[in-house]
């Protein structure tokens, strides 16, 4: 098990190296070159010259790359062209919001998707199953921002059940030791703040979780149906394993393998979705920050964020691989 984890961590290094080279070349391929990227579109020629001198952009590429990597390893990821704030700080100030949103969305998707897919598979071909299949098909095809609009319009604008924007009511005064607002409220025993933050999460999390929910339900259904008919399930049943135990230990466990892969694949999707959802709900996470960076072409921010997100993404996929080992003992041997 430990070897598997170490092996996968080892594979991370070439991936990240490759990515850093691509990102490095990317900034140099920008119209106007890296100096424009740092200074913004309206930079004067003199300023560009000065930056080129200062950062050594006129040196050979490989020297520049090594110097840049050295900076990264020291934790210096540059500063936003627009706000002059260090990118790393901006990232960590907003990351908790996005994690909070993504985790709640994922909990909704997994918590409803797996039972739904499982129940549908157990009733294969009947009304409940067909409804699930159709609903999940529709769920996949509704764009996340259109759904966000719909939810916002119906439940916030029309019915007024949930707040329509932000992470907390502006009137709410709360302390934030961790940056996870719901957790903060619980830790500091400011229950009203925790509740308020939670109500702000509901609509964005449902919008964000809908597509993964539909996909997870479909994969679970297909996987359970396939495992149900497998020879080893028949064998286990023939050997007298009681149905509840059979379903739990044999069917569900074996059916979870493709589901685990799918959940891992959803992370990238959740991230793109988070950018769109956070924009619609004015939710101040990395998503809406990224959307702003895109809008302003803030290259320093984009470069650093792409790297961070790729690292997070790779780590999640590592966790998925490790979870195979936990679910399926055969994987541990290899």
């Amino acid at each position: 098990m430990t070897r598997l984890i170490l092996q996968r961590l080892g594979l991370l290094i070439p991936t990240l190296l490759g990515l850093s080279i691509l990102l490095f070349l990317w900034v140099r391929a920008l119209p106007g070159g890296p100096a424009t990227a740092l200074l913004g579109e309206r930079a004067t020629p003199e300023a560009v010259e000065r930056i080129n001198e200062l950062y050594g952009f006129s040196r050979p590429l490989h020297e520049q790359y090594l110097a840049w990597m050295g900076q990264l390893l020291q934790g210096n990821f540059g500063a936003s062209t627009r706000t002059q704030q260090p990118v790393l700080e901006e990232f960590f100030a907003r990351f908790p919001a996005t994690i909070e949103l993504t985790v709640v969305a994922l909990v909704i998707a997994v918590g409803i998707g797996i039972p739904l897919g499982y129940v549908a598979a157990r009733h294969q071909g009947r009304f409940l199953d067909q409804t699930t299949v159709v609903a999940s098909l529709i769920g996949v095809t509704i764009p996340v921002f259109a759904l966000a609009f719909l939810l916002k319009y119906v439940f916030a604008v029309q019915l007024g059940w949930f707040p329509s924007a932000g992470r907390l009511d502006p009137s709410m005064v709360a302390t934030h030791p961790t940056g996870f607002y719901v957790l903060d409220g619980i830790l500091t025993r400011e229950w009203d703040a925790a509740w308020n933050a939670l109500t702000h999460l509901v609509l964005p999390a449902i919008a964000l979780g809908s597509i993964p929910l539909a996909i997870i339900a479909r994969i679970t259904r297909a996987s359970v149906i396939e495992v149900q008919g497998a020879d080893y399930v028949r064998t286990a049943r023939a050997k007298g394993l009681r149905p509840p135990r059979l379903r739990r230990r044999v069917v569900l466990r074996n059916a979870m393998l493709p589901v685990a892969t799918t959940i891992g694949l959803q992370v990238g999707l959740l991230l793109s979705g988070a950018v769109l959802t956070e924009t619609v709900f004015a939710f101040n996470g990395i998503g809406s920050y990224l959307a702003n960076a895109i809008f302003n072409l803030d290259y320093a921010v984009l470069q650093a964020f792409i790297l961070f997100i790729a690292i997070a993404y790779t780590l999640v996929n590592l966790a998925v691989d490790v979870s195979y080992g936990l679910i399926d003992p055969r994987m541990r041997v290899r």
Partner: protein
Amino acid sequence: MTGDPSAQSALTDTVVPSGRTNKADDVGASQWRVAMRRLRRNPGAIIGAVIVLVFVLVALLAPVLAPFPAEALPGRAEIRPTFIPGPSDAYPLGLDRYGGDLLSKLIWGARASLLIGVLSTVIGLLGGMLLGLLAGAFGGWIDTAVMRLVDLMLSVPSLLLAVSIAAVIGQSPRAIVIAIGVVQIPIFARLLRGSMLAQRGLDYVLAASSLGLSRRTVTMSHVLPNSLGPVIVQATLMLATAVIEAAGLSFLGLGGGAPTTAEWGRMLAQAQNELEVAPRLAFLPGACIAITALGFTLFGEALREALDPKTRKR
């Protein structure tokens, strides 16, 4: 393994005309003819095909169907800050914030979506097939190198890749097409490679090589054509994804152009400020995107099922 397991097994079984097929009329028929027959019996496939057909026709006939040109603002004089006229005889779906006719803009939007969807999928298909073919045909270190590259491409979330590309070539519909296309490349590459690898060990390949055919002939005229099924299924499904992603990217403003651009994602982005005044401005483009994506998805799923011998019994 890569890609969708059921899609892959679809081919490993179909291409061998053995006793696998269960319907009498399937014996001896080519996999595509069998698939066509099964598609016609599948209500999902028919609904999907009808939606796709209507969408394509609307997109192609936009100049005939749309009451107004794409960029026209015929009702400009009737717009007030707090009031946007709804449906009327002159404007069947009402006006938008700038005085454009909503119906016309939705129709022209279909054309923009079709163009972006098809062009980006072609890029993804060609690039992915080239890489997949390289990896699947040569194996060895070429395979390893190509697959590392593919893994690298997959490790960057699609939205970020799109943003990076738009940053280099500027905010335009072209950026969106290239971005979505490039994001699809690794998916098609893995699919084709996996599909080709699954073919390699099969009897007919062995038979072809023992007849003395060159490796190139075996690969190009036997393995490749028989590996295309999952790729074609995926391409159909990708059209749905492309329409949704294109809308998302232009929603974020990566498509550039004026705020009056007749493009569904762009229209939705503009509508977010009018949610309380005229919610239809958001819902109608949203519905167009969803229905179009549904059409391609239904058809793609039905195609996958039709090519899958495991579901053939039913």
